[in-house]
């Protein structure tokens, strides 16, 4: 599989002496949906800044689709779309103008720029706002505008730095759908996010960065397989609770209130066994949820381990 991004021994020390990146190496395959996770100040945005040339690196090499970003500036930038963490468009310009202007920077003729702008503004639900000044947009709309702007030249690699921060759940889900579709069409996506559920839902591979170093770089599946146990909360009918408690006495289970039971399933175990037991006892389960986000627990474990 060819690589979309290859980072070798990347270092960045800011003028104030802060060492943001301590020689990280990373590869992202073409067509991947890749998560870059880490706490605040871990080096995620600096990494993205270096890839997109907004941050001057202190050492190391970056290749985009096999081309060095220093020697193939035009080609690598053409392949790259960046959605930054903070709003970075002119708040006094019209929505449509922002996207069309960005297309112009990539050399797209006006008619094509207009076509692409229309396409992405429609897809991202901003069509009705296209003639509005961008400052009048809501937070979620501003983020979608930045995605439309990053896509207008149709890059092969899209980097999103916390694109759903501060976005409501409904909108976040629709952005997920959009990104999944985009990835399905072949666009490689690198995502940083604070919502670990988002990374788990969307990404196939993951790197965890902490204190300027990569502490984990693996597939999402492998990472989740490291989980020792999962805690499920089952809601049952009030009348069934005593039966449920009794039939789960051989499991690591405890009642939480008059209709909820918490069950811990160890690695190698199966929630199916719990359900089979409950079904045999004639207990009706009305709902089930993970008590904690699985990835969240692993994330914390990784970061604790790296300290």
């Amino acid at each position: 599989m060819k690589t979309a991004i290859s980072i070798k021994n990347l270092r960045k020390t800011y003028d104030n002496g802060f060492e943001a990146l301590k020689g990280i190496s990373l590869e992202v395959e073409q067509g991947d949906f890749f998560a870059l996770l880490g706490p605040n100040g871990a080096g995620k945005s600096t990494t993205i800044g270096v890839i997109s040339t907004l941050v001057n690196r202190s050492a190391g090499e970056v290749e985009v689709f096999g081309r060095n970003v220093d020697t193939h500036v035009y080609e690598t930038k053409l392949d790259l779309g960046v959605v930054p963490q903070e709003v970075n468009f002119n708040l006094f310009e019209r929505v449509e103008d922002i996207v069309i202007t960005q297309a112009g920077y990539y050399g797209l003729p006006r008619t094509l720029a207009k076509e692409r702008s229309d396409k992405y503004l429609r897809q991202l639900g901003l069509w009705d706002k296209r003639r509005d000044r961008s400052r009048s947009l809501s937070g979620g709309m501003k983020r979608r505008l930045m995605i439309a702007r990053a896509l207008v030249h149709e890059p092969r690699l899209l980097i999103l730095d916390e694109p759903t921060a501060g976005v409501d759940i409904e909108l976040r889900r629709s952005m997920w759908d959009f990104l999944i579709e985009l990835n399905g069409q072949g666009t490689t996506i690198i995502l940083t996010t604070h919502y670990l559920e988002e990374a788990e839902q969307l990404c196939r591979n993951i790197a965890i960065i902490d204190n300027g170093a990569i502490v984990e770089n693996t597939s999402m599946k492998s990472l989740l397989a490291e989980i020792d146990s999962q805690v499920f909360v089952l809601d049952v009918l009030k009348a069934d609770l005593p039966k449920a408690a009794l039939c789960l006495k051989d499991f690591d289970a405890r009642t939480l209130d008059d209709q909820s039971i918490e069950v811990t399933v160890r690695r190698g175990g199966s929630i199916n066994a719990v359900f089979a037991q409950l079904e045999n006892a004639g207990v009706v389960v009305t709902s089930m949820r993970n008590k904690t986000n699985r990835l969240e627990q692993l994330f914390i474990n990784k970061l604790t381990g790296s300290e």
Partner: protein
Amino acid sequence: MYVNHKRIAFETIVIKEIRRFSRIWVQTLVPPAITIALYFVIFGNLVGRRVGEMGGFQYMEFIVPGLIMMSVIQNSYSNVVSSFFSQKFQRSIEELLVSPVPNYVILTGFVVGGMARGLAVGAIVTTLSLFFADIQIAHPVITVTVILLTSVVFSLAGFINAVYANSFDDISIVPTFVLTPLIYLGGVFYSTQMLPPFWQAVSALNPIFYMVNTFRYGFLGSSDVDVIWAFLILGVFAVSLYGGCLWLLRHGTGIRF
């Protein structure tokens, strides 16, 4: 980047710049017109009548080229410094920096944007001056060339100011404490031949003195400076400032971290 792509990118930057200052025309085009109109009324008309002749011309005729040049210098400078700094401040400059537009295209785009505003204001002021003086242009080629070069030089100077500026105060310090005194002492309102030799020598160190006087030569056919020497100075300034700006862009000074 292909030539055609560069052309489109360049046009995009220029159109964006022109759209910016046109959108806020009440802030960008009207105030200089009012200020210069007041200069014409007060200095040219009221005071000028008592001054009589300056350098062999009616005082009003004498100050018209200087006032046009003053407005071009100030507006070329302030367009680039305010536009580039605003984009830095709002971080919208990142739109350009992540794109494949070469540095020289970015720089030339901003400079042409600055020239567009400088020359637009210059045209407004020239039109206004027709109400106050009978304008004749003795050397049109020199007039046009010097105004274009001056506009380039001050657009580039504005760019450097914007690159180093960290706050909105920083973009007003240079125009207030450097540019305005140099313009006023550059012979806009008087002929340096009126000055004692020492102050004539001091005036010769002021680059704006050469620009104002060469432009005046283009209008009136009379100047306090050698026109060839003035063009040489302008050319050196334009080339070295352009090179300096490109160096700053390449190193990411003030824009890349």
